[in-house]
């Protein structure tokens, strides 16, 4: 069965996986980069370039952990060891179900998370195709809990960041000079955090393994490196002596506009590392079963080309449709100034990258929303619409069962076609 239709399965898996990553690139990236464009820190073109580079690096360098979770840890295929094709049908169904649901939802403008769709779909076919016990419920519990916790964590970090910017820079006698003084430190934080999380035991798939100390040293070096770059660029922004506070605030926003290039890069990296798995996780599962000739080798490693393909899919989505989506979203977010955007973006990036390092598939968009709320709580934003939070809750309640039902439907469809 597996051998007979092997190339068909792989082709289907790759096409669907690419479609999913394409969708992630086209839609989700806009949510990750929208705050940067909306606050006027970078242009749409710059956003696309940054996103392309860092989404790809994120997917390639750090996308393996979440992919592994989606591919292996959610369901236990032991009961179907003899009939591995069931898992292949299931993962194909999950991909189609999630892709279809996401397409419908974006068409209707509903707030739906890619991560929730794919998890719901996988759980759906597993219950019906393998059995309720096949679902690793404790893992699912952790994941669902993370969906509640991660926006709160993102919000808390954003709140603290915003407060620190207020305390050290905005609410001082010499805000402009303080902005110049502390800006490199914040940029150091961006580089240090992201690289530490990525490096520490994270590059096994490239045959690079660093100890804690080594990772730490590299992260510090990288952090200092980006801080120095930021320092050099920011130093070019100057202001006359005795400038009014009002003008100083304008100049400070220019400084943070530059800093947002770094936080946007971090956000793109984090997004790539977390969200690529939604597309390539099921794809990787199918490829590994087919390539091993039907053996469900739970130990098999993730082939590098799959990560590359995922990164490629995201960049493809970005360059074909993402441009327009970012433009639309950016135009709507004009209420966010760079000091706020930087706080929200760095907080979201840190939360996402830590979650994805531990292999937990989180929703980047929901964390970004949480981070924006955190900045709002620090009295940083003019007006936030709390109804959106309700919309997110609703999309939760709907997406999981719909994804599950759709994937059950496709599961029976595939079983019928190939039997």
């Amino acid at each position, binding site marked *: 069965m597996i051998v007979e239709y092997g190339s068909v399965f792989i082709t289907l898996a790759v096409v669907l996986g690419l479609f999913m990553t394409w969708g992630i690139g086209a*839609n*989700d990236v*806009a*949510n990750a980069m*929208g*705050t940067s464009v*909306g606050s006027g820190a970078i242009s749409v073109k710059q956003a696309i370039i940054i996103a392309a580079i860092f989404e790809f690096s994120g997917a390639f360098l750090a996308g393996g952990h979440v992919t592994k979770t989606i591919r292996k840890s959610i369901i236990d295929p032991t009961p179907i060891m003899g009939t591995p094709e069931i898992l292949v049908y299931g993962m194909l169904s999950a991909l189609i179900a999630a892709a279809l649901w*996401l397409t419908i*939802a*974006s068409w209707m*403008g509903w*707030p*739906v*998370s*890619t991560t929730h769709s794919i998890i719901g779909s996988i759980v759906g076919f597993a219950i019906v195709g393998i059995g309720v016990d096949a679902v690793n419920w404790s893992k699912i519990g952790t994941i669902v809990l993370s969906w509640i916790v991660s926006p709160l964590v993102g919000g808390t970090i954003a709140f603290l960041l*915003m407060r620190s*910017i*207020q305390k050290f820079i*905005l*609410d*001082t*006698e010499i*805000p402009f000079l303080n902005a110049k003084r502390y800006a490199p430190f914040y940029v150091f934080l961006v580089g240090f955090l992201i690289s530490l999380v990525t490096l520490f035991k994270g590059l096994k798939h490239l045959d690079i393994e660093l100890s804690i100390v080594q990772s730490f040293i590299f992260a510090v070096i990288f952090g200092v490196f980006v801080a120095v770059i930021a320092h050099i660029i920011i130093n070019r922004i100057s202001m006359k002596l005795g400038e009014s*506070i*009002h003008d100083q*605030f304008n100049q400070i926003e220019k400084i943070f506009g530059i800093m947002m290039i770094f936080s946007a890069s971090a956000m793109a990296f984090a997004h790539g590392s977390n969200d690529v798995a939604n597309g390539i996780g099921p794809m990787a599962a199918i490829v590994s079963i087919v390539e091993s000739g039907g053996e469900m080798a739970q130990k098999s490693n993730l082939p590098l080309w799959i990560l590359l393909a995922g990164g490629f899919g995201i960049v493809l989505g970005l360059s074909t449709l993402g441009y327009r989506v970012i433009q*639309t*979203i*950016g135009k*709507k*977010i004009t*209420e*966010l*100034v760079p*000091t706020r955007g930087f706080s929200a973006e760095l907080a979201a990036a840190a939360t996402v990258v830590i979650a994805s390092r531990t292999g937990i598939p989180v*929703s980047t*968009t*929901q964390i*970004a*929303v949480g981070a*924006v*709320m955190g900045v*709002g709580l*620090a*009295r*940083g*934003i*003019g*007006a*936030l*619409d*709390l*109804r*959106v*939070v309700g*919309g*997110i809750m609703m*999309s939760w309640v709907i997406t999981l069962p719909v994804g599950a039902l759709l994937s059950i439907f496709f599961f029976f469809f595939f079983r019928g076609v190939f039997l």
Partner: protein
Amino acid sequence: MINISSIFAKSPFKPLRDHMDKVVESVIPLNDFFEALFQQDYSKLEKIQQQVIQAENEADSIKNEVRNNLPRNIFMPINRRDLLEMLDMQDSIADVAQDIVILLNIRKMKLPEELSQDVIKFVKKSQDVCYLARGLTQEFGDVIESGFGRHEIKKLLEMIDNVSIAETEADNLEDALVHRLYEVEEKMNSVDAVFWYKIFELIGDIADFSKKTGNRLRLMIASK
């Protein structure tokens, strides 16, 4: 897809400032209006009335827009009710300016010449209080930008105190004028006299509502 942009509602602070700018526009021609009245340049009265009414209308539409964009589930760094009340206070200034020009354009009343210079002085003082209040809305922008930092709040509170002080000065001018009007009212058409008292009150209201704008702002930055 959840669109991150949907969480951002339209900030009311820029429109609040725009509204105050329109209000000031309706107050600016008041001294010219009284000069024209005393010089019996009635075509000018008509022209200024149109100007004031237009500014008041524009202020009104900004006010309505702010209100429409502020449903209850909007989260802001300030209390929603304080904001709406401040908006109302600002709007009252333009309403009063409109009342003054409409009333005087209908009742083109004369005033004993010895009072006219003092009236102009009083009008200018009231205008100044209103201009000071406009300065508050601009400084408020910096308070927001600083994330309600203590330094900017302190500066704003001092400015609010200055508006109150200026309003007291306008009050004193009003009292003096009322006294002087009382001294000469017997020589005047009695209906005119009654209406002049009314006009003085309205001119005083410009300063008074400007002060109240400041007080609402004080509540807004103090509470929460």
